[in-house]
């Protein structure tokens, strides 16, 4: 970032309306802050819905043998947990942050297409409602895994078409949200806010939005083929008719791999926004961060079959996808080194957002390393479909995406509410999370290497100890997240007192949102701020 604000004109002309009164405000709102709040609150609720499912899974796995739930319901839980977390919690949370922060970071009065913005939120709700309704249907919720592989998924009961249409609605929602982000960033920047002055959060979201527009239609196409295979006699995934179930896997992972980057790129963006503020240094290697993000996004389209090493690809394919996947470690490594270099010799302080961000850098790197291990095709024959991969992606998602979402919450809550959160409880939340997340997921590496398959309700006796440890970690982790809810509510109600516009020391030098009052007024930057370049930031 190399921009500061010279002066900020806070005048509101007579066009400015405040919010509507009552519940209708939230239903028909087109205000980016309202919609951002809706997304964030919705995501938080879904985080607990998905979390409850995870705890059902971990209760069943606490001991060998079938304890609480029947196997089909167990499989529904693994499937629904993943779908709810991916499409209901992590993605919407980042869209919420995008809505709140992007216009404020680039000096825009709102998102470019406010009515469509409203629609994308409600599409999300509708999609999740359709998905949730399947829990109560004959035959149970989808149980074939979040990847919805045929032919297994075609055996789903009444839930099947609802799950498919839910994916369609979620896809429309994401595409509309992504289009809005792109139009906002390209068209609404304040004069002087050149692309290479944008905070990295904005950059990473711009690239994420491209990914979303490219992949959500692909997923929609894949599930449409599932639908017609089941109900309209097509043979896309049926060898008897000349199709191939492996075709589904190719299409799904062409979507699926970029999809995991949809969840991690904005994470990188927030981390790159928070770390410099608390290290009191400009971000190290700003331009290289931008290029690395672009490189990761590009590579994400050409590595999908690393999820399919064991389906019987030709050797040339195995080799290609192995080396291409390994390449991703390079731009990812650039990022990790840049974060570290940003902290190097900085005058660091360790408020809750920074704690979560540092833990992110360390623990995400762990997830990256296991990814690298699995990218080695012959080794992946051992790891595939075991708890090792469960450990891998949970390290990249929980102590990475979720930790950074928490960091973002602590970092921007004062701006959103005008009040300071309770730092003591925040730190307690951090330490409980950071310790328990490792109790929860680290043993899963051992389980996987020892051969415990994923997606099973019961297991051989030799896996008992580490499963018990993992389940204990899960309950500590799950319940400590309630602290976050408490802190959010407490902060909205006043927290530990009012904050200034800048909140964090010198934050205004890093990004524009710290130049408007706290809480941020309903409309910001109705007249654009003036941005002048400075030497250091």
């Amino acid at each position, binding site marked *: 970032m190399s921009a500061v604000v010279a002066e900020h004109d806070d005048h509101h002309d007579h066009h400015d*309306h405040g919010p*509507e009164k009552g519940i209708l405000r939230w239903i*028909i*709102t*087109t205000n980016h802050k309202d919609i951002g709040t809706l997304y964030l609150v919705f995501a938080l609720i879904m985080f607990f819905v998905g979390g409850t499912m995870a705890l059902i899974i971990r209760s069943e796995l606490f001991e060998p043998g079938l304890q609480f739930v029947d196997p089909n319901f167990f499989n529904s839980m693994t499937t629904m947990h993943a779908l709810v977390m991916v499409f209901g919690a992590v993605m919407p949370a980042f869209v919420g942050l995008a809505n709140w922060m992007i216009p404020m970071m680039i000096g825009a*009065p709102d998102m*470019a*297409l*406010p*009515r*469509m913005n409203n*629609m994308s939120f*409600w*599409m999300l709700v*509708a999609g999740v*409602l*359709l998905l949730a*309704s399947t829990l109560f249907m004959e035959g149970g919720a989808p149980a074939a895994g979040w990847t919805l592989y045929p032919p297994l998924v075609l055996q789903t009961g009444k839930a099947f*078409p*609802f799950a498919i*249409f839910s994916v*369609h609605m979620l896809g429309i929602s994401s*595409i509309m949200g*992504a*289009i*809005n982000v792109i*139009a*906002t960033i390209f*068209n*609404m920047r*304040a*004069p002087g806010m050149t692309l290479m002055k944008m905070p990295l959060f904005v950059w990473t979201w711009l690239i994420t939005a491209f990914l979303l*527009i490219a*992949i959500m*239609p*692909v997923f*929609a*196409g894949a599930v449409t*083929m599932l639908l*017609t295979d089941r109900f309209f*006699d*097509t*043979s*896309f995934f*049926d*060898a*008897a*008719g*000349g*199709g*191939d179930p*492996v*075709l589904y896997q190719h*299409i799904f992972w062409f979507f699926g791999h970029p999809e995991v980057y949809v969840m991690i790129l904005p994470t990188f963006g927030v981390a790159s926004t928070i770390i410099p503020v608390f290290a009191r240094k400009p971000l190290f290697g700003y331009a290289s961060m931008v290029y690395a993000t672009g490189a990761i996004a590009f590579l994400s389209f050409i590595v999908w079959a690393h999820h399919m090493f064991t389906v*019987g*690809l*030709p050797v040339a394919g195995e080799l290609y996808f192995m080396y291409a996947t390994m390449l991703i470690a390079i731009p990812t490594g650039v990022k990790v080194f840049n974060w570290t270099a940003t902290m190097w010799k900085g005058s660091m302080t360790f408020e809750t957002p920074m704690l979560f961000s540092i833990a992110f850098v360390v623990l995400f790197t762990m997830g990256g390393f296991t990814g690298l291990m699995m990218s080695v095709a012959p080794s992946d024959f051992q790891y595939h479909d075991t708890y090792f991969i469960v450990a891998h992606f949970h390290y990249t998602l929980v102590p990475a995406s979720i930790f950074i979402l928490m960091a973002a919450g602590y970092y921007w809550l004062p701006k959103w509410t005008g009040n300071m959160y309770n730092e003591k409880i925040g730190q307690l939340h951090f330490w409980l999370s950071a310790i328990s997340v490792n109790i929860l997921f680290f043993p899963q590496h051992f389980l996987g290497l020892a051969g415990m398959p994923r997606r099973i309700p019961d297991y051989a006796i030799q896996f008992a100890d580490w499963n018990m440890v993992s389940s204990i970690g899960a309950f500590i982790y799950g319940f400590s997240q309630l602290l976050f809810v408490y802190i959010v509510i407490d902060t909205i109600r006043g927290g530990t007192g009012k904050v200034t516009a800048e909140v964090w020391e010198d934050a205004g030098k890093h990004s524009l949102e710290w130049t408007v009052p706290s809480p941020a007024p309903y*409309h910001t930057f109705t*007249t*654009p701020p003036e941005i002048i370049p400075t030497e250091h930031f």
Partner: protein
Amino acid sequence: MSTHGAYYIPHKAVWPVLATAGLMLMLAGFANHLNGSAIGSGMMLTGFVAFLVMLGLWFALQSTESESGMYNHGVGISYRMGMMWFIFSEVMFFAVFFGALWYARNISIPHLGEGGMLSGPGRSTHDVLWPAFQAVWPTNGPGNVGGEFEPMGAFGLPFINTLLLLSSGVTCTWAHHGLLAKNRDQLIKGLLATVGLGFLFVAFQATEYYEAYHEMGLTLGSGIYGSTFFMLTGFHGFHVCVGAIILSVVLFRSWKGHFTPENHFAFEAAAWYWHFVDVVWLGLFIFVYIM
């Protein structure tokens, strides 16, 4: 490039949320219908109508606002970007089905047939399950799924349809030139021709489908050939219908005297969409019909 100052920010909108509710009702109805529930089709229809009405009212509002000069240049740019990226998402959607066709012809069929292009498990499927199956195209697979059929030739109706759609692209551009030259007559005639050609295309395609089902034994259930043929051409036909309806609205608005050489986003969006549909058809004609 400053789009600030007069950038129009609407303050509330009921149509988006109502349209979403309509769409959800429609899809829930469709799902119920597929599950064999009697209420399904009614729900679906109600939802569909609600969705269309809400979208219609939304677009009517946009059009009124646009005509009353509330949108400046910056708003227009946002709309154009929105349309561009929406079309890109549609391109990706069609790409999946083209990809499936490519995969079937180059990977799964050769695998299932003798001497697959690649070694691997496809071979054993062939040896164990269908040793008699030969890799040919078109095919309904080793299971002869859907029974004997005759593949669709390229140079009957499909060729005529290609000519129709290409000329409609020309008339659409001609109409655009009319709009830019303030030649209202040319604008309306051009649009009329475009819409007419579009609907004629759909009519011919319906005839083609009728013949396929009733005379050639070719159905959606005719193995991978039938699946890819009907899904690709069917989604395309659906897009032609949507495009023609959008163009009809634009025609109606032109007739009411909307649009100026400077301000005619709706026309441009419709035209882009139409050209996109045109290009997809060319792909179809080459990869589905000719090759």
